[in-house]
């Protein structure tokens, strides 16, 4: 097959490209330039967006003896990922930009262009298993990235390759070291690539300016403080609320109302939810018949929880088997079919609109 390997300059995509070459594919490397004003050198451990990262990717491609190009997708990335990220926070939601990037950039803009240019597949260094069109968790549970790929549809998965899904991150680094790749010991990237200093609140403040509003305690309805912008908060957040309530019990963000700019906080007992209403779902295969039982993961690094998936007013209604905290509108609810042997299979996902307590119990 003619395979386009997306190469960030990190160790994962380097090894993924190498394995695609080993598998006998005709591989071309592409580095995606996603930032309009690229730094010459990396700052911190966030590897993907600097000229130095492009150089690292090119070095690996040269060692593999494959063609290598840089594709400038900065405009698309700004529109579809960065501006969306800002707008979501502005609307009081908590987006996942990595998931959006996979949906709109890597497996849409890049895949479309690759197919038009005659490539059969796009390979990336994501840690997830993909076999027979079925997307499953990586064997390395700690590094599993199936959550941020949960948004892919069957047609996108049909043209995707994730060569690393059946190995641990340690094994990936071993392979890189065996091959003498300079990136073998390169630190993992963290957080959000377009916020290289890791200061999301500072980034949003620069973009949105100061927009002060009240912090209200749910139990009393009283204003207990003021904030500079609702975008500095995420549902479930406990630290950095900047308020002191008389009883000294920990408070959590319960809700964000962007029009009145009200952040509502409350005690632990009020923070739990067991029902999630979503927007329109996407499915990795034929849409399953509703209702069905599954596991749902409600943010990037949380444990999955049992649930029943029903039809909802705008998408799905997910009834959780156990109460959860910190379920923020804007995050994706990724649904899994448990499979201890082959890895949990991703069924689909939908964006959380509302997370609340319900009056009835889940029937299993």
């Amino acid at each position, binding site marked *: 097959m003619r395979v386009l390997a997306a190469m960030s300059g990190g160790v994962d995509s380097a090894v993924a490209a190498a394995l695609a070459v080993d598998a006998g594919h005709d591989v071309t490397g592409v580095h995606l*330039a996603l930032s309009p004003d690229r730094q010459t050198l990396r700052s911190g451990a966030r590897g993907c967006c600097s000229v130095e990262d492009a150089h690292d990717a090119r070095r690996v491609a040269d060692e593999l003896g494959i063609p290598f190009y840089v594709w*400038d997708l900065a405009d698309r990335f700004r529109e579809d990922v960065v501006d969306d990220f800002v707008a979501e926070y502005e609307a009081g939601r908590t987006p996942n930009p990595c998931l959006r990037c996979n949906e709109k950039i890597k497996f849409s803009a890049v895949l479309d262009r690759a197919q*038009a240019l005659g490539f059969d597949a796009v390979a990336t260094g994501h840690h997830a298993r993909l076999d027979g069109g079925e997307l499953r968790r990586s064997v390395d549970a700690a590094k599993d990235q199936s959550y941020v790929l949960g948004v892919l549809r069957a047609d996108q998965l049909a043209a995707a390759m994730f060569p690393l899904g059946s190995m641990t991150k340690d094994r990936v680094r071993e392979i890189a070291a065996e091959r003498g790749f300079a990136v073998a010991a390169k630190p993992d990237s963290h957080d959000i690539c377009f916020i290289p200093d890791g200061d999301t609140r500072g980034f949003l403040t620069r973009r949105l300016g100061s927009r002060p509003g009240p912090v209200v305690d749910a139990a009393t309805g009283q204003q207990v403080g003021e904030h500079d912008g609702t975008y500095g908060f995420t549902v479930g957040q406990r630290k950095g609320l900047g308020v002191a309530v008389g009883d000294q019990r920990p408070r959590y963000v319960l809700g964000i109302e962007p029009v009145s700019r009200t952040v509502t906080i409350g005690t632990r007992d009020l923070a739990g939810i067991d029902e999630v209403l979503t927007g329109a779902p996407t499915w990795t295969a034929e849409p399953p018949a509703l209702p069905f039982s599954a596991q749902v993961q409600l943010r990037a690094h949380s444990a999955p929880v049992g649930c029943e998936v029903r039809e909802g007013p705008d998408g799905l209604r997910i009834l959780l088997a156990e109460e959860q905290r910190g379920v923020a509108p804007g995050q994706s609810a990724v649904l899994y079919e448990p499979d201890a042997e082959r890895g949990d299979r991703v069924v689909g996902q939908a964006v959380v609109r509302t997370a609340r307590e319900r009056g009835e119990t889940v029937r299993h």
Partner: protein
Amino acid sequence: MTYLDHAATTPVLPEVLAAMTEQLGRVGNASSLHASGRAARRAAEQSRERLAEALGARPSEVLFTGGGTESDNLAVKGLFWARRQADSRRRRIVVSPAEHHAVLDSVEWLAKHDGADVTWLRVEPTGRVTPAALADALGDGTDVAVASVMWANNEIGTVSDIAALAAVAHEVGVPLHTDAVQAVGQVPVDFAASGADALTMTGHKLGGPMGAGALLLRRDAECTPLLHGGGQERDVRSGTLDVAAIVGLAVATVAAVGAREERAARLADLRGRLVAGVVEQVPDVQLNGAPLDDRIASGAGRLPGNAHLSFPGAEGDALLMLLDARGIECSTGSACSAGVARPSHVLLATGADTERARSSLRFSLGHTSTDDDVDAVLDVIGPVVARARRAGLGSR
């Protein structure tokens, strides 16, 4: 492999390889006084004389440098500094926006860090700078430190009439620098006859080694050094002479200039067949730069080996990749250090829109080019353009 990127670099001539290999086997610093040093100095000075003769310069006007970028930096910065030193009113630099980045970025650096004012020259749609445009920009010249206009453009191959431009500059007492990196060996270049005060040339565009070039600098031109040290090159450029590279540079220049007329005619024929063949398969292709048969007073108005084409609806990047996959090597023009394709500043300077600039490809022929190379392009260009168009211009 079909190599059609001679404007980027061209294969080293066998006689250059032989001369350099011989010289590399010898010990001797050209500044040393003993026999080995004298032998090295003799080889360097013979090379200086041969190169000067080939380009219509005096040997004392040849300053060996590390290549075109260094020569451009030295000329632009050195002439600016020396002229402003002599008269503090001279802060203005008059320059074409279609210059190579070695000139552009030097000028912009001077503007940002050293108080220079920049006047951008009007550029014809062909990319040419006319004497009238230069005269307008210079005014009475009293506040101008230096003017710089390239002899032939590296992307679109357009040749400007340097003799006419130098005459205009000299009327108001302004020195003219010209970047002739692409011109030497392609069109007649005679430094004395051109009247230019400083001329940049380099070895690897004409069959010589990389990292070896020269600045031809009139003896009466004051130029402040960039590199300080042993003062080897007229006290304007320091650094131990790289004798083997200098020998290679001279051998290549003499060979390229000597064979120029015959080769130019041959390349112009091949280039004409290439363009005609592309037009046949892609009727809406656009030729950038001057017409193929354009003439100016000094001869050809366009480099004989240059074909710069825009393919509407296709992205230059995609075309390059598809051709590369089929063993054909060409260029989209100038790439920035990040490897991210930007619309060509040269095309934008000629008034082309962003889409035309982004959809362009440069084929540049050179001394090893053959009919087979042209055939190889014509065999695939139709389907390649069709496929690149399906991939679109990278936008929605």
